[in-house]
């Protein structure tokens, strides 16, 4: 259960997602320890074929998995004031930002996209844990607000894929203020009568869980994902005892009534699609303006199993055609 913290650095390197290393042939599953052929792991969208352990999935791959034909428009996000506190710990925050931008090719920890899911227009906001632990700062607050705004404008549901260590300390109180600000984003979507769905992935903790990530009309979680307010280490220090196996994991939250469903990655799209179709109001769906780019969607297209997504489309406005993603 403690695979997150226990893997030696050598193995950690092996598990760098494909963005970082493409030359590894075999990987050892942190769940069951089996050696997996990297190509099989990729084809299964980073889910271990033998034990179903869900490894981290890069945002681009998840978006490709979600949207019809892997195609989506990237939503342009506002660029808020950078480093207003001129924060410096052992490193300058400004330098950390640069480093993370270079490393991830993203401007900050959240991206937003629009596309169709089985023919229905959906806005997705997705956090990248690799960008400073997916931490919530001003840029993320603005990203959530922008995503909500586009959702309301297009009368589309908003799906948030959460992955975060919490608020970004380097922005001090301004990061804390993103809790109410992102909550306003959620309210905007809800008030417009549109579904707001949270898909919690590993890990989601701190101020992110304590704001938009727990406010879904429906909260879904990936198997094994660590989800909580305080991190396990802080709790163990507070209560001075060891936490039981599985504490704060997705299945635990399901049992405690905090999430509606634990959804494996293979069922992600079909589950979201079904829910959205059930929740969205007919007249609004009819009025939904679909972008020209997505006009070619085939709502009845049959799902094919586990095809490997094509090349990365990080900067592309529209992804090149992909094999139909797994449902």
């Amino acid at each position: 259960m403690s695979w997150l913290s226990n893997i030696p650095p050598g193995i950690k390197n092996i598990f760098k997602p494909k963005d970082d290393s493409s030359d590894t042939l075999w990987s050892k599953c942190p769940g069951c320890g089996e050696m997996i052929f990297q190509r099989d792991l990729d084809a299964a969208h980073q889910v271990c074929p033998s034990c179903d352990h869900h490894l981290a999935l890069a945002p681009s791959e998840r978006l490709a998995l979600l949207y019809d034909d892997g195609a989506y428009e990237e939503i342009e996000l506002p660029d808020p004031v950078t480093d207003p506190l001129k924060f410096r710990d052992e490193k300058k925050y400004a330098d950390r930002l640069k480093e993370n931008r270079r490393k991830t090719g993203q401007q900050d920890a959240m991206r937003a996209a629009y596309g169709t899911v089985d023919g229905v227009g959906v806005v997705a906001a997705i956090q990248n844990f690799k960008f400073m632990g997916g931490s919530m700062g001003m840029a993320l607050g603005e990203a959530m607000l922008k995503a909500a705004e586009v959702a309301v404008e297009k009368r589309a549901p908003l799906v948030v894929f959460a992955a975060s260590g919490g608020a970004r300390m380097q922005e001090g109180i301004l990061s804390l203020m993103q809790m109410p600000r992102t909550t306003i984003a959620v309210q905007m979507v809800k008030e417009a009568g549109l579904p707001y769905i949270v898909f919690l992935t590993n890990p989601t903790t701190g101020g992110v869980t304590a704001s938009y990530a727990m406010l879904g009309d429906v909260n879904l979680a990936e198997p094994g994902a660590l989800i909580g307010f305080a991190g396990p280490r802080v709790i163990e220090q507070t209560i001075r005892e060891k936490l039981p196996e599985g504490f704060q994991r997705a299945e635990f939250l399901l049992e405690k009534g905090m999430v509606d469903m634990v959804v494996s990655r293979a069922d992600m799209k079909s589950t979201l699609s079904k829910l959205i179709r059930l929740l969205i109001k007919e007249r609004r769906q009819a009025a939904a303006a679909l972008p020209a780019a997505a006009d070619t969607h085939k709502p009845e297209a049959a799902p094919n199993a586990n095809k490997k997504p094509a090349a990365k489309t990080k900067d592309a406005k529209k992804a090149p055609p992909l094999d139909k993603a797994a449902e």
Partner: protein
Amino acid sequence: MRTYLDFEKPIAELEGRIADLRQMDGETGVNVAEEIEKLQGKADSLLADAYSKLSRWQKAQVARHASRPHFADYVSQLVDDFTPLAGDRAFGEDSAILGGPARLRGRSVMLIGHEKGSDTAGRVEHNFGMARPEGYRKAMRLMDMAERFDMPVVTLVDTPGAYPGRGAEERGQAEAIASCTEKCLGLHAPLVSVIVGEGGSGGAVALAAANKVLMLEHSVYSVISPEGCASILWKDAAGKGENKAQDAAEAMRISAQDLLELGVIDSIIPEPVGGAHRDVRLTVERLGDAVESAIRELEHLSPDELKQQRRDKFLAIGRTGLA
């Protein structure tokens, strides 16, 4: 017996000598009034000087001062007929957050706030002001009630943070904080918050997503405690490095003055010289004035306008006024 903070040592010495002289005065009949007056003058100016240039870390210490006025002091000195209501109607009662209707200078308000406790037994009873999910859910219940009866809500924030315990996690601490914040933001009644001591992270913001957010002069409000920040960013275990916590407090800019400058709060309530604990009566009086005038400003807004004003205010944070 007054508790002195580290940086107050010179003042403590002077005040100690004054006390000794006073005692001597009574016992011996020797006239030391002149000497006392001289020392008192010196002590006063030292105090005024120290408090006029407190560092952020010193402010954190003042904000956590054992004798700082807490919720109970505001209840006993600011309002009449406070009627504490208990329970979240689902799991239990959490006395880290207290609340109920009260009369504030003639007006019915819903008064809600963290209580840290002021002696050992009280601190344990109130869990040092660290609320569990039940506390936030009770607060939500009271806010709903306030809205129904058209009462302004006044929250007094004073918490190191929400309680990071096992049961709290099991019962959805994150969800409770998120929903309480959402409740604040959706409220159709005036909501005025005052950070009276420590505004610790999400546990504070859940009660402070308000139309007007005020801070006492030496209170602090931050995303994480200076110690917590230091232990993460400076890899410094809590307890062993006050210096690093000091650095973290500076870097995060946690003072009321910082927050006003960053456009996060609306105004600062001045404290008596030497901090709120030196003159609780005056502190309560000034807080009462500030809250009353904040409510007055909001009273003419319609329910929808109240919600919109609050939303606009939070949306503007970080969009304007930053260098």
